[in-house]
């Protein structure tokens, strides 16, 4: 993985050192943030599952962009590959398979909508402190620290390093998890018992 670091580096950290003014970045950020919200809203409100799925893909892309802006280009790439690429394809495949494609709407009634709205609002209200909350200064890195780290260790390396050292155990667990998932999927999919 270390090998292909430079190539990725080209895509690499957007940011001050490329000399693009912060303001532009801000514009881009806001554009994609807004788009993400809108797309997700569409995703949950489209009657047609297929449409929802596509809007979800849309959301995922936007989020991927946000990742990149937030100094996580590698994750952004993964997002596109794994999520938009693999997982969503899986979803679409299943939707097609069960040809829910043209199934006329699976939205619930107005009551449900109202309830959903109220609860969603309630949830937002509870989460709203987050907006103006930030990690305690004592443990915050100086601005741009992560960015420079990426520059030095490479986009992948910065992530891969700790993944195979500090986070070895979780990493192994994920492998186990995936195995279990595969076994499970197989069991459920087997024609006969």
């Amino acid at each position: 993985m270390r090998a292909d670091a430079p190539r990725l580096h080209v895509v690499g950290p957007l940011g001050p050192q490329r000399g693009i003014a912060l303001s532009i970045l801000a514009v881009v950020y806001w554009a994609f943030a807004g788009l993400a919200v809108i797309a997700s809203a569409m995703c949950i409100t489209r009657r047609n599952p297929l449409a929802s799925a596509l809007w979800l893909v849309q959301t995922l892309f936007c989020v991927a962009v946000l990742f990149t802006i937030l100094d996580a280009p590698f994750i952004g790439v993964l997002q596109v590959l794994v999520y938009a690429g693999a997982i969503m394809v899986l979803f679409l495949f299943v939707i097609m398979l069960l040809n829910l494609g043209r199934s006329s709407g699976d939205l619930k009634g107005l009551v449900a909508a109202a309830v959903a709205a109220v609860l969603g609002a309630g949830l937002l209200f509870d989460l709203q402190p987050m907006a103006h909350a930030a990690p305690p200064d004592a443990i915050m890195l100086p601005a741009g620290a992560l960015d420079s780290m990426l520059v030095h260790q490479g986009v992948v390396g910065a992530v891969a390093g700790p993944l195979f050292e500090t986070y070895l155990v979780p990493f192994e667990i994920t492998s186990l998890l995936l195995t279990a998932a595969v076994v499970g999927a197989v069991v459920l999919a087997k024609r006969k018992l």
Partner: protein
Amino acid sequence: MHLVWLVPLLPFAGFLLNGSLALAGSRTKGVVSFVGVGTLVAAFGVAVYVVLDLARSHPAGPVVFTYWDWIPVGTLQVSAALQVDQLSAVMLLVVTGVGALIHIFSVGYMHDDDGYARYFAYLNLFVFFMLTLVLGANFPVTFVGWEGVGLCSYLLIGFWFEEKVNADAGKKAFIMNRIGDFGFLVAMFLIWQHTGSLDYGAVFAQAPTALTMGGGVATAITLFLFLGCTGKSAQIPLYTWLPDAMAGPTPVSALIHAATMVTAGVFLVARTNVLFALAPVSQAVVAGVGALTALFAATIALKQWDIKRVLAYSTVSQLGYMFVGVGTGAMAAGIFHLVTHAFFKALLFLGSGSVIHAMHHAYHATHSHEDAQDMRNMGGLSRYLPWTCTLMWIATLAIAGIPPFSGFFSKDEILGAAFARGTAQPLWYVYWALGLGAALLTAFYMTRMMRYTFHGPNRTGSREETHLREAPAVMTGPLVVLAILSLAGGVLNLPSLMGGTAWLERWLDPVTAAGAALVPAHEVAAGTEWTLIAVAVGIALVGIVAAFRLLDLSTLVPAKSAPGETGLGKLLWKKWYVDELYDAVVVRPILWVSRKVLWRVIDVGIVDGAGVNGAAATSRVLGWLASRLQTGELGFYAVVFVVGVVVVLSRALR
């Protein structure tokens, strides 16, 4: 004297023997009657010995025999102890003596009854308890006898329990007595609390100092005691059980409901004369209730047709006299009347017993189901039962108070005492007057009874007439003895006025002295006394004569064809509707409240229904409702979930 324990024990042994014979279902009447009568006669013998012994040694105070510690708890020390003194001696003789006679009579009377053994067992047991009552050396032991005799009367009234009325009568008697016993118990509590003892000796010694003269405590104690007496001795308001008690065999009526048990109340007042002496109010109440009862019962007796009921009410009325006596403070007079009354009333009852015996046989022979006790079915019996007739006339004159019969002396002493007290407290004049009235009525209804029963044309029925027979010797024998006693009983306490020595009074002196010392003696001039006597005798004669004049025997018809009473007559015949009143005011309400309110509403309805099962049902309903929320729809689950999230988050942030 130390043999006194034998006196109650002999009848008890008899009870055990006969009782086991009864349970064994043996029909051997010989053994039974031997045991039953034998123990009583033996007891009488021992009693006589004991009394003679007492008379000889003539101790200052009562002689107490303590047998074992009964209820020893801390400062409350009750021992199983008997005490012999002059008062208990008198009762001892009356109970065993009259008792023995009645036992003998019963041998004949109950001869054909298949409950023969059971009968004698009960009778013996009764005598045992009665003796415990009179011999007890402290309140609790007396109370044992007190409730014991109640039990026996319950058993004997309900002796023929197949008839619901009999069983009812027994129950009624016991419960009414229990009401009285409630008073007795509370009195005991008070006494123990204020004198610290329940032994007669200690209590009476303590009382004058421990209780203030006329104080609330003394009054309370004595009133509660008297409540007990009204129950046992059938005084207003608790008298209604006694007439019903006639449901029992006639000898039982004679022994328990005339001669002995019912006089227990009088005995108790005499026994506790010290306490009563300390409570003038209570004395007034006792005498007052006694006088009222005497008159009231007498009025009812006027219109009764059942020969035994007449006697029953006369008993109630005579008991009233005794209470006037003891209430007035003339203990000796009260006891005197108690004794004489025991004689002549026993005689009357046994006499009526032999009448009923005869009637019963007559009807039995002809298989007719007429009432063998209804005087309207009798008449002219003197021809068939000459002995009974004459003997009963003696008793009648005695009870009417005609000299020289015993009743005359005793009744006269009571009236005299009441009048004498009246000089100090005018209230007693009223009592005296009431007493006179009662005397008049007594003379009247007794004569009425005798005439309806023995004289005029016979109404038993032509076929039955032929079967009427005088009772066997074993029954008439006791009658004769009793007749002699009621004839000569007066000598027991011949007043000095008539050259007598007032023997009984002096004999009882050791017992009554303490009480008498507390109340000022009331004397009246000899002249006044003579006039009083004249008045009393005159009244009695008037009553008798009136009975002869007013009552027309020829118009009388047998019970089945007799017309119903009307007006005052009906009121009297219906006993002033007192039973109905009690039933409506006490019995029914209690039953109704218990069944409808306490049980159905409160217990089943509220406590159990609303409370217990209510709680259970509520939780079930709640559970059911909650389980309805489990719609099986995932969407809804998610909603609940998110609601939970919102709540938890907002709680976390506060």
